[in-house]
């Protein structure tokens, strides 16, 4: 806090928080509109290619024996993974009472919800006949036949469906008091929308008492999801007998990878957000240092998992397993494997240096490299349809995110005031 602020009365400081956080909602600049147009274009391209794929069949996505999931499962796993650190930051850090959470939680929760929306599209895209997706949902059919609950695909429906619903409720509940605060600063249709979204919240002691308990329980319910959802996703692979996949370490390995990629994505999103919206007072270098430590820690776990994976294959007597890993390290796609190890295991080691942890530009570079590295985890040569649809998914995610920063409170107003 600088000297001007300590001289300010507390009421002025509360008002300043309102102003600073809601300043993001002003008329967008050219750069913002250009970004929005670009991401929307990617969505349109992705959508058109999806339509083309539906019309022509999955062959255009390179589906042929033995390739039957291709890049769509990579994208699914990638986006579900991205979602994870949102929950970690908002729920787990809440339970641990970590103060720096306040700087990141809203951005992270939004990221979780949007990443899950994007992730959820990929099983549908992969289906080919996307409109029969409801076969996966257990409902009483005419034939009285129910879904096969022993199938990992059905576990996915339950795990990801639950995750999305709980994350959405958590995201929304966190914003209820902020909607009530924000509606006092806007006019017109926005005021009406915020009033409805605030549910008529007034801030009485009764509301706050129940709200505190609700938030605590939602955090407690969301926390086990951090470990369980990506474990279930990993079992999509591990329940198969494909060499290189059929292994028991997949669940913890995926969870660590998810948190690594998600934390990297939070940094990727929040560094530009802080700069563009001038939020240096609320999101400080100390906060970035704390989050960089999480990135470093999860990177070490992921590196350990890489070592164990190769260790299990080389010690075991399964020749197919051995060959799968030899191929990964030395075969056709070796450069991608090495790039992955470089991005996920070596680059984050630089974060042992305190000076680098506090340098947000450097953090942004590291986080982008980690995002690339995590995406490289499942290697394969894609067709242009797959590339286009994948780019479309990135477009959709960033478009939703851009819409979020202009339309909803990007930081938790009530929590920041509480900590003033």
């Amino acid at each position, binding site marked *: 806090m600088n000297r001007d602020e300590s001289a300010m009365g*507390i009421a002025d400081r509360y008002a300043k928080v309102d102003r600073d956080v809601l300043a993001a909602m002003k008329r967008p600049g050219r750069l913002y509109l250009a970004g929005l147009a670009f991401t929307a274009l990617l969505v349109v391209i992705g959508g058109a290619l999806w339509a083309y794929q539906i019309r022509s069949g999955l062959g255009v996505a390179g589906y042929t024996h033995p390739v039957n999931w291709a890049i769509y499962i990579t994208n699914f796993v990638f986006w579900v993974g991205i979602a994870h650190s949102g929950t970690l930051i908002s729920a787990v850090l809440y339970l641990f009472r970590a103060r720096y959470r306040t700087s990141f939680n809203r951005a992270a929760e939004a990221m979780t919800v949007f990443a899950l929306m994007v992730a959820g599209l990929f099983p549908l895209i992969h289906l080919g006949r996307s409109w029969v997706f409801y076969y996966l949902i257990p409902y009483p059919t005419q034939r009285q036949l129910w879904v096969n609950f022993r199938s990992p695909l059905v576990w996915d429906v339950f795990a990801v469906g639950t995750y999305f*619903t709980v994350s959405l409720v958590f995201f929304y509940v966190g914003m209820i008091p902020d909607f009530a605060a924000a509606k006092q600063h806007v006019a017109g249709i926005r005021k009406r929308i915020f*009033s409805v979204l605030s*549910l008529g919240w007034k801030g009485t002691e009764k509301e706050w008492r129940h709200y505190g308990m609700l938030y605590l329980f939602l955090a407690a319910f969301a926390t086990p999801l951090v470990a369980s959802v990506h474990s279930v996703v990993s079992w999509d692979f591990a329940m198969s007998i494909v060499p290189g996949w059929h292994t028991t370490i997949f669940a913890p390995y995926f969870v660590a990878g998810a948190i690594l990629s998600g934390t990297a994505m939070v940094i990727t999103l929040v560094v530009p957000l802080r700069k563009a919206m001038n939020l240096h007072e609320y999101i400080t270098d100390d906060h970035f240092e704390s989050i960089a430590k999480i990135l470093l820690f999860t990177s070490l776990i992921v590196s350990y998992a890489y070592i164990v994976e190769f260790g299990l294959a080389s010690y075991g007597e399964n020749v197919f397993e051995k060959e799968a890993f030899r191929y990964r390290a030395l075969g056709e796609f070796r450069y991608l494997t090495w790039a992955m190890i470089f991005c996920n295991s070596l680059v984050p080691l630089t974060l042992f240096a305190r000076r680098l942890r506090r340098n947000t530009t450097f953090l942004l570079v590291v986080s982008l490299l980690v995002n690339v590295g995590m995406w490289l985890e499942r290697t394969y040569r894609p067709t242009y349809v797959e590339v286009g649809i994948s780019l479309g998914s990135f477009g959709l995610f960033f478009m939703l995110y851009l819409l979020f920063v202009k339309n909803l409170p990007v930081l938790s107003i009530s929590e920041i005031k509480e900590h003033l």
Partner: protein
Amino acid sequence: MAAPMVFEEKGKFLERLRGLVREGVPGERIRVITPFGVPEVEEILPRGRSKVRFFALVGAASGTVTGFAFTILTSLSWPLIVGGKPIVSLPPFLIIAFALTILFGALSTFAGFLLLSRLPSLRGIRSGEEYGNAFVILVEDGERR
């Protein structure tokens, strides 16, 4: 209802609130409105712990029961052996039960919160009554209650 007492600072607001309680104003007649949750209010006006937690327990427990009952009963209703697994395969059913425990628990906690806080409130949505960042104490008249 008496005119609202509006404070800019949390300290002064809490002081006045303590004063009111000391003066013998019954706690049920005092309402406060704050821009964020103030834990001290609960110490001054003890109302007991929020009952939202019972909704969490009942929701979560019903989720577990539903998860197991649903998977077991539907499997038994058309007993078809798939992949050599037993008809009632508890390990995979546990995954469904786990997911539903969390889903039902979270949704019922949210519903409990809405019910207990009387939200959404149409009056609250329509009302123009706004106190901004102020801490407010409202004392309701004795006779009306």
